[in-house]
């Protein structure tokens, strides 16, 4: 009986999946449920017994602070995602061809991946701050009268510092994922298309791109999800106001009055929901596009 039990395919699959699913439930779904429940007013540790109430969500969602933060967060997340995808794919496609110094260059382009985001932030400060290297070089060259004249890139609402760090890390990331997909595709189809008279652009657009699309979609999904929910880079390089959603959430989390924790949790829930909606919509669009093409040929 017990022998048969462990030979049952379903049992084997269940046992095989259990560690991964268990970890996911324990580390991801669990805390998220806690956040949801607390945001609805159930936090006995902090002496909040108001479950169920939408008061905290209402308070957060109807504030201008939240709306501004949501717009800014989307902006800081989407621009680097778009640029990193564009540049990463361009790099990967270029390097899939024969390029002089390819090995060295592709090693070089991967380097930022091993550097932590925080180090990226420190590098951006060293380069682009008003007292930074570039400002001082321009000053030494006589192009600006004082380092204070150097345009403000960091700590401003434009978020250029934040987006620069994201790009610095995410172009190589996209590059690596797309390169891996490209090596599976091989050059044959593109060469065949070219032999049959397709222009370089046509071969890319109609032959290569559809094949690497799954990789492009995956990497941009991951990049967006990270950018939208990242805390430390906007905290270090962003303006005091406007701040991103995660920064606003943590500010509320750190308020000493613990009975206000549910506000922070309402932010956490909102961040998860918005990011979920965007990712879901993106995937839907991609599926629709796939279907309209009638699947990969």
């Amino acid at each position, binding site marked *: 009986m017990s022998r048969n039990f462990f030979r049952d395919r379903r049992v084997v699959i269940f046992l095989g999946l259990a560690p991964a699913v268990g970890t996911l439930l324990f580390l991801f779904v669990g805390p998220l449920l806690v956040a949801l429940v607390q945001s609805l007013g159930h936090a006995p540790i902090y002496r909040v017994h108001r479950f169920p109430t939408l008061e905290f969500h209402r308070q957060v969602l109807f504030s201008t602070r939240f709306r501004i933060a949501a717009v800014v967060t989307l902006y800081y997340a989407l621009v680097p995602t778009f640029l990193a995808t564009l540049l990463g794919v361009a790099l990967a496609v270029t390097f899939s061809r024969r390029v002089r110094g390819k090995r060295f260059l592709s090693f070089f382009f991967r380097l930022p991946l091993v550097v932590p985001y925080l180090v990226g932030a420190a590098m951006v400060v060293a380069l682009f701050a008003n007292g930074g290297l570039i400002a001082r070089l321009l000053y030494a060259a006589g192009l600006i009268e004082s380092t204070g004249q150097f345009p403000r890139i960091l700590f401003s609402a434009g978020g250029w510092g934040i987006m620069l760090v994201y790009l610095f890390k995410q172009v190589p990331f996209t590059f690596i994922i797309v390169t891996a997909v490209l090596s599976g595709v091989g050059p044959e189809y593109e060469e065949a298309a070219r032999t049959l008279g397709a222009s370089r652009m046509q071969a890319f657009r109609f032959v290569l791109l559809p094949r690497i699309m799954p990789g492009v979609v995956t990497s941009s999904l991951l990049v967006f999800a990270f950018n939208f929910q990242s805390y430390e880079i906007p905290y270090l390089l962003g303006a005091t106001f406007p701040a991103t959603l995660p920064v606003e959430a943590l500010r509320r989390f750190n308020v*000493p009055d613990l009975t206000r924790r549910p506000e922070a949790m309402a932010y956490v829930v909102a961040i998860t929901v918005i990011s979920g909606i965007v990712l879901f919509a993106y995937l839907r669009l991609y599926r629709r596009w796939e279907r309209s093409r009638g699947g990969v040929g």
Partner: protein
Amino acid sequence: MKRIRRGALRFSLLVMTALAVLACGDRGAADPGDAAAFREAFLAGRLSWTEVEERAAREGEVEFYHWGGSEALNSWMETSARPDIERYDIRLNLRRSDTRDVVDLILADMATGRGPGEGTVDMVWINGENFRTLKDNDALFGSFAALLPNSRYFALDPDDPASSVNLFDFGTPTELMEMPWAAFQYTFRIDTERVRPEDVPRTFAQLEEWMRANPGRFAYVAPPHYIGTTFVQTLMYEKNPDGTRYEPFLQDPADLGRGEFIRLVKPAFEYLRRLEPYLLGGGGTEGRRGSPVYPATAGALQSRFVGGEVDFDMEFGVFDVDRDIRSGVYPESVRNIIFPESGMITDKSFLAIPWNAPNPAAALVAVNALSSPASHLSKLADIGYAPGLDLPLLDPEDQESFRQAAPDLHGVTAEELAKHEAPNVNARFVDVIDAIWMTYVAERSEREFEEIVADAWDSVVR
């Protein structure tokens, strides 16, 4: 294949058993019922100190949670606190942690029903809002401070005005539930290579003139970082239209009232808005705000000061300048200044014991050990933490050794600093100040000041 699978199964069973054993495992020698009885007997004064020490040795260890962000402090804990406590057969377990997280940990323990003797934290270095949170949640051991033998070095008599810094923590009565441990005064620093001593402002009004003459050379840390909030509080004291400086802000917000609060703080917040064009990155013309930079942390401000972008630095701790010159962070030419004359906020930080401390007797003995003149002296000499005890209560020779051990004050004297001491605001104002600053200054909201304060007030003072 099959063998591997069965091996994996056996392994996972083993792991699960191990986890189960760990989960149900013994949580230390203390018997909970016993700990509750001990607490009651000690607080009622029914136990001799020898009995406490005996029990402490039986408990055998103490879990000390402290902010671990300073290498100097961490090494002092190892070289001075550890031997002082281990002398009583108590092993010192140092847990470095953010104080907010410790408060969370204690409350979470309580929420899961862990009573006296069953918690995780024995003692914690704490002050301000965090202490208030524990006190509000009845999470503290009790009024123990005056019952420790070394309490004779601390002014704890409610009738003695010198005691108020020991008996009030950000306006919250300590009720002897925490023991003073170190004192920190908020000081401003300049670099004499850049600001001539005769140009140093003594008041915020003079600072305003200086900033107009030197646009872009001043920045302060953004609240809600406490270095930023304290800057705003200091300004509120000088700009208090009644000239009563800190006095009205010591009481509970509910007693002061919203309208009165608005009247008292409006000049300070108008000052902050008016000066925005002259802050670092501000743009420098009247009426045009530009985009001023508010460093997010004290470290970020310090690096701009050292890097020559701004001319003032600010932090808690009068001996920091000496330490930072020695370690090479500051150039030799950095000095403390007396600023503003209306009052430099001083607060003490404390050692507290949670209600459900797993080793309460060991915690009491450890706090007592860290309250000795010798321990405070070594803390002052080694890492420049001003003593939490009160020097006038010490023998003359001991007082002299504290004077000898104190690091150089670089530019100011202990007498001047003492003369300009001012207490911190009531802890319950802190959230209100942060919320107003965020909306009125950082966000530069178009709404009326009164309306902004009303919102902040109502969301915090309930």
